[in-house]
């Protein structure tokens, strides 16, 4: 059992606040992804959980034990670093065995675990090599195997795939998901890649400016962003936003059309580009750029002077300069408070 509880963790670097009082609970065996742009505090939070950084305030609990005063070695964690951190003076075998030897494990058990994790990560034939003789992908495998061999309660991963090329990243992503699901550890995985986050996570914590903006299941984060930032950060292309003006109780005028909306002082209209349908009745959009992507076509248009994107069926014939009518799917429309940028239910 290794539930992770983070209570009011904050971190200041001099005058700069990297984390503002973060609260987060990660269930046993859950795969939690910390997602955000660089500088949002996700790596700082991971390093605080690992014990490589001390929090300025707050508590970190792992498996019912308060650990924020403990050194990394006493926390029952293993970590995979962005640049792999494979020890260059040791063979692959000794790299994987490093933590086991530190724990004074008998030689037979060391050999059993190293062989098993190496097989699992498909590097069984590389055990005698040194880090300098490995490719980036192979080094990444060694780093993951080294963490898995510890059979830790918690695995922490700091952008482990970001140094790999695109094809290899795709392959490793699927493999990681399988391996980690089998190992039954709690995983915290830091990335700036939303596709990686969506595909791996049980839950995603979207971070921005030192806050956790939303922590929820990937589909929930995608469908029901808790804040404008989440909608604009997740999704490629991101969510469209349009200003709205009140038009009677619960009715809002958006780009000349009237929609049913929340009962509120002010609101901003939002819709995902793929939740638009070409129809005879809807928002008038002046097409600027047409990008055929194969399965569908990406349209960049202008609606009421605002940039606006739509993903349409690829059999639609559209040319720049055309004015088309885009109808939002009614139950996919979202509303945000223009002041707080929070979602309005």
């Amino acid at each position, binding site marked *: 059992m290794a539930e992770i509880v983070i209570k009011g963790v904050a971190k200041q670097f001099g005058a700069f606040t990297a984390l503002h009082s973060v609260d987060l609970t990660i269930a046993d065996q859950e795969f939690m992804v910390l997602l955000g742009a660089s500088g949002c505090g996700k790596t700082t939070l991971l390093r605080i959980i*690992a014990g490589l950084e001390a929090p300025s305030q707050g508590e970190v609990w792992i498996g019912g034990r308060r650990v924020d005063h403990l*050194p990394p*070695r006493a926390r029952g964690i293993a970590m995979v670093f962005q640049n792999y951190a494979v020890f260059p003076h040791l063979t692959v075998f000794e790299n994987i065995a*490093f*933590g086991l030897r530190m724990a004074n494990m008998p030689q037979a058990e060391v050999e059993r675990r190293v062989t098993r994790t190496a097989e699992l990560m498909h590097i069984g034939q590389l055990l005698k090599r040194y880090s300098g003789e490995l490719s980036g992908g192979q080094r990444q495998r060694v780093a993951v195997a080294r963490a898995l061999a510890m059979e830790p309660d918690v695995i922490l991963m700091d952008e482990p795939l970001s140094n790999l090329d695109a094809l290899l990243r795709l392959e490793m992503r699927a493999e990681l998901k399988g391996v980690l699901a089998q190992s039954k550890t709690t995983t915290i995985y830091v990335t700036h890649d939303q596709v990686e986050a969506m595909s791996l996570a049980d839950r995603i914590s979207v971070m921005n400016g030192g806050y956790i903006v939303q922590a929820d299941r990937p589909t929930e984060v995608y469908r029901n962003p808790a804040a404008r930032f989440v909608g604009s950060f997740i999704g490629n292309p991101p969510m469209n936003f349009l200003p709205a003006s009140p038009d009677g109780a619960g009715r809002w005028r958006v780009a000349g059309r009237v929609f049913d909306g929340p009962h509120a002082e002010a609101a901003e209209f939002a819709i995902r580009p793929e939740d638009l349908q070409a129809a005879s009745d809807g928002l008038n959009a002046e097409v600027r750029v047409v990008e055929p992507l194969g399965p569908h076509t990406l349209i960049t248009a202008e609606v009421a002077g605002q940039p606006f994107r739509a993903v349409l069926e690829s059999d639609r014939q559209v040319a720049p300069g055309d004015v088309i009518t885009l109808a939002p799917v009614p139950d996919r429309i979202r509303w945000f408070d223009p002041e707080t940028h929070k979602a309005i239910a």
Partner: protein
Amino acid sequence: MSDVTIPGPRREEVNRAGRFLFGAGIALLVLWVLVPIWFLFVNALSAPSEVTGFPKRFWPSFDLASVRFFWNFQGVTNALWNSIKVAVLTMILSIGMGAPAGYALSRFDFPGKEFFRVLVIMTRAFPLPLLALPLAVMFIRTGLDDTVLGLALVHAMLALPFAVLITFSLFSGIPVELEEAAWTLGCTRLQAFVKVVLPLALPGIAASAVFAFVISWNEVFAAAVLTIENRTLTAFLLQSLNVSPLPLKFAGGAALVLPALIFIFAVRKYLFAMWGIANR
């Protein structure tokens, strides 16, 4: 287009002149270094009678009479042994203090870090002649005068800035993630240093130790002022310069230069690294 041509050297002539100047400059610098060394060795390895002779032969006659004479000269072996003792002690002291300082500079942020770095270099700003007299007085009071330890302390001070600088660049070249990975795998800070950082830094630390050895080996001023009975080789040769015959001076000079040359050549890669020049 106008067909005015500016009279002057053509491009290839300029290039040729530039190449010639470049080559001549290099030749001059090489000769500047090599001629004295050649002179030293050709005389040290020639028969005493040849030393005063002119013109010199390019290859020495490999007559070991000079060297033998030097070796049997009263006090030489003792001075040589003193030189080795002082240099080894200097090596231990400067690495023992310099490597931790280099590690701290590369891994920790602490108040006054930049000031400390300047201060380390500043120890070389005071000319030794200025320090020698007060040091001699202090050493006589504390009983450190004319001892191997006393001289080694002064030499360690001279070698320390280099030891700190070399080890600083050495440790900075080892990614901190390697240490962090070791911590997460069960190491204390000290264990991570011993198991991960030290194996990677050892060749460079050895180089910096050798450099400290050479600094002590070559140092003459402090050695001459602070020792009387237990002279090092440099101080001994300086003292007996005007009473010893020419072959002895050359043989002594060669004996001093040879280890320094070999050592510096062996560790040149790391000395370049000290100044931030890529070493691969």
